[in-house]
C-alpha cells in the first residue's frame, strides 16, 4: 500500500518518520503510516487528564489527542481488585460509571463487545472500549457472576491479581500455589461463556496450570520477559511460550518492571518486544501498556496522586516490588498520546518488517478476540 504523506502528517502529528523504513518483504510500505493499522492496547487507561471539574464530557484537548493517537481500541479495567467483601458491588458501580462515560462521549468512543465493534470504531474514528476485569475474587464461588459480567459487557477476565484468590495464586504470593479446584471450574466457566482468559498478575505455577487447563486460546495481556528482568510481574519463557503454543497472545507492558533501574526507556521495551517475539513468534505478541492513553504530566498534582495510590496499594498488599510513590507507569521517552506511533517507528528502526509491526500493534489481538469471542465456535 502506498503512503500518503499529508494524510499521515495529519494523523500522527509530531511523530518522527522512521516508519518509512518499515517495508514488507515485497517492498511495500506499512499501513501503519497512513492510519490504516488496527491499533489495540490490550491493557489501557482512558481518563481525561484535562477535563474540568465534574463534566462527564471529555475535553476538546483529550478528544484531539485521542484522534491523533491512532488507537482503535483499548481494554479497560472495570473491577476493584482484591479480596475485600465489597468488590462485587464496587465493580458493578464502576461498570455503570464507565457505561455513562461512554454514553456521554458518543463521538469519541464506543463500548466494544465484538470484533465488529472494533471495525466500526476504526471506521468511525472512535476508540473501542473493551471491558476487562483483573481478578476473579469478585466472582469467588458464585460462577454465575461470570455470565452476569458478560451480560454487562465484560469480555476479558483475569484469573488473579497479585495476591491469592480462591482460584489461584497472584505473583506476589511466596507460596506459588497452583490452581484450586474452584480455579479449574472458573476457567471452564470463562471458556464456556467465550470470554478471554487473562493470566497476567498470576504466579508461575498458576500461569502454567491455567494454560494447561485451558482448552481455548488465552492472553497474558500485560507482562514482561522475566528472562530479561527477574521481577515477579514478568513471566518466564516457558509460560510465555506455552501461551503462544495454545494460540494465545502475550502483551508487553510499558512499566518500570521492564528495567533494572525502575525507569523504563524505549530501549528496554524494545528489548522485551524482541525477546517475546523470539520466544512466542510474531503472531503471539502484542501491546498491553498499562499506561493511560494520554501523556502523564509529572507535576506536583501527579506526584501527590501517585503517592496516595502507592500507599493504598502498599497497605492493601498489592504493590509489587519496584512500585513506589514516585514510580509512574510510563516508558519515559515515549510518554505521549502518540506512543503507538513512536513504537511503530521504534520497531521499524529495530528492523522489524511492516507486517510484523502491524501484527503486534493490533492484528494479533484482533485475531485472538475473534477466535475467543465468536459465538459460533
Amino acid at each position, binding site marked *: 500500500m502506498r503512503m500518503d504523506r499529508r494524510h499521515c502528517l495529519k494523523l500522527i502529528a509530531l511523530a518522527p518518520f522512521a516508519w518509512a523504513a518499515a517495508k514488507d518483504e515485497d517492498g511495500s510500505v506499512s499501513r501503519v503510516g497512513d492510519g490504516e493499522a488496527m491499533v489495540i492496547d490490550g491493557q489501557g487507561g482512558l481518563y481525561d487528564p484535562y477535563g474540568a471539574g465534574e463534566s462527564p464530557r471529555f475535553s476538546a484537548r483529550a478528544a484531539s489527542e485521542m484522534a491523533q493517537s491512532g488507537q482503535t481500541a483499548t481494554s479497560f479495567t472495570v473491577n476493584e481488585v482484591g479480596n475485600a467483601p465489597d468488590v462485587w458491588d464496587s465493580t458493578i458501580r464502576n461498570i455503570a460509571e464507565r457505561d455513562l462515560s461512554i454514553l456521554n462521549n458518543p463521538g469519541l468512543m464506543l463500548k466494544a463487545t465484538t470484533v465488529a465493534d472494533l471495525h466500526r470504531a476504526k471506521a468511525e474514528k472512535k476508540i473501542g472500549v473493551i471491558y476487562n476485569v483483573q481478578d476473579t475474587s469478585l466472582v469467588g*464461588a458464585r460462577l454465575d457472576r461470570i455470565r452476569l459480567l458478560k451480560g454487562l459487557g465484560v469480555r476479558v477476565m483475569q484469573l488473579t491479581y497479585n*495476591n491469592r484468590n480462591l482460584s489461584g495464586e497472584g505473583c*506476589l504470593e511466596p*507460596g506459588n500455589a497452583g490452581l484450586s479446584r474452584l480455579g479449574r471450574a472458573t476457567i471452564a466457566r470463562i471458556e464456556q461463556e467465550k470470554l478471554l482468559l487473562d493470566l497476567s498478575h498470576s504466579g508461575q505455577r498458576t500461569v502454567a496450570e491455567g494454560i494447561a487447563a485451558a482448552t481455548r486460546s488465552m492472553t497474558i495481556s500485560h507482562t514482561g520477559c522475566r528472562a530479561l528482568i527477574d521481577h515477579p510481574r514478568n513471566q518466564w519463557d516457558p509460560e510465555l511460550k506455552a501461551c503462544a503454543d495454545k494460540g494465545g497472545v502475550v502483551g508487553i507492558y510499558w512499566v518500570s518492571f521492564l528495567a533494572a533501574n525502575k525507569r523504563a526507556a524505549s530501549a528496554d521495551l524494545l528489548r522485551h518486544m524482541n525477546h517475546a517475539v523470539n520466544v512466542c513468534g510474531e503472531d503471539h505478541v502484542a501491546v498491553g501498556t498499562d499506561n493511560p492513553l494520554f501523556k502523564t504530566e509529572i507535576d506536583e498534582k501527579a506526584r501527590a496522586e501517585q503517592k496516595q495510590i502507592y500507599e493504598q496499594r502498599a497497605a492493601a*498488599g498489592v504493590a509489587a516490588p519496584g512500585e513506589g510513590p514516585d514510580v509512574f507507569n510510563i516508558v519515559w521517552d515515549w510518554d505521549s498520546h502518540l506512543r503507538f506511533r513512536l513504537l511503530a517507528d521504534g520497531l521499524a528502526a529495530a528492523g522489524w518488517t511492516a507486517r510484523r509491526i502491524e501484527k503486534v500493534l493490533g492484528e494479533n489481538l484482533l485475531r485472538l478476540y475473534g477466535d475467543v469471542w465468536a459465538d459460533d465456535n
Partner: protein
Amino acid sequence: MATGTGHARPFSPAAYDSAVVIDGCAGWDDPHGDPNEVRFTSRAIAEARESGETACTFTVNKAGNDPDVWCASIRTIAEVDRMISVNSDLMLKATGVADLHRAKAEKKIAAFYHVQDTALVGSDLDRVAVLKGLGVRIMQLTYNLRNLSGDGGLEPDNAGLSRLGHATIARIEHEKLLLDLSHAGPRTTAEAIAAATRPMTISHTGCRALNDNPRSAWDAELRACADKGGVVGIYWMPFLVANRPPTSADLLRHMNHALDVCGEDHIAIGTDGVLLKTRINGEILAARKKRYEQRVAEGIAAPGEGPDVFNILVDWDTHMRFRLLADGLAAAGWNARQIEKVLGGNLMRLYSQTWET
C-alpha cells in the same frame, strides 16, 4: 506406652465423676423430641447429665466460600444463643475456663463456640475480633476446600499458606483465640503450625498413617502440633477405617497411635458426633441423603462420607459414650492419669493457655 495388657481394670466411677470431660468438636441433637422444638426433652436433659460430659463445642458458622457465609454465621450464632438460653438448666455459653468449672459444679454442659473455616472472615480480619465478641473461642483456618488463607484437605494442589493466611493466624493469636487446623491440607497444616507462636489444636482428625484419608493428618503434622504444645483430638468418624463403619476398636487403634506420636499430654476427644444416641429413621435418612448430595455438589464431601453414613462408632453410639471410652482405654492398658488427660484435662490446659495467658 499403652498396650492391651490383659490385667487392666475399668476406669473407676469416682474418677469418672470427678473428671472434666470435653468433646473438642461436637454437635447436639435431642433424639427424643421434635426436631423443630428448641426446648430439650426432659429425657435428653437427664441423659446429658448422666453422660458425664462437662463441655463441648458448637460449630456456629456456615463453611465454604459463598458470599453469604458471614451473614449466615451471625444468624447461626443468634440461634445457638437462643437455644442455650432456652435450655439454661442444662447448658451455658462458655467463653473461658471458669465457665468449665462452673458447668462441672452446676452439672451443666459448657458450650464453646467454634467456627470451622475462615472463609467468612476473608480479608476483613477485624471480623476475627467481632467473632470473639460474639463468643467464638476456636477458629479453624480452612474447611476441605481452598479459602483465601490456605488449602483444605480435599484440594489436590496441597498449597501452603497465602500471605493472608499468615496474617489471619497472627490475628487469631493476637485475639487469643484457639487456632484449629482440622480439615486443612498437609502443607497448610505444616506451615500453619510452623507460623504459629502459640499452641494450637487439630480438634477432630485421625491418624493418616493408619488409614490414608485426606481428612486425617500424617504423623509429622500430629507430632509438630504436639511439639508446639498443641492438642490433637481424634474423631469418631467413618474416616478411621476404609470400606466399613468404624467401631470402638478402630478408635482405640487411632488413640493408641496418637498417643505414641504425640504423647499423653497432647491428645483429646473431638467426636464430630452428637452426645446422645444418634437418631436414625426414615425421615432422618432422607435428610442425611439430601445433605450428602449437597456436600458432593459443593465438592466438600470427603472419601468415606455417604448418603447413609453417620458420625458414629456402631458399638458406642449412646449417651454413655465417654464412659465407654474411659473403660475401653483402661482395658487397652491406659492408666487413670492418661485417661483423665484425654477425656478433658489436656483440652482444659490448652484452652487456659490460649485464652488466658
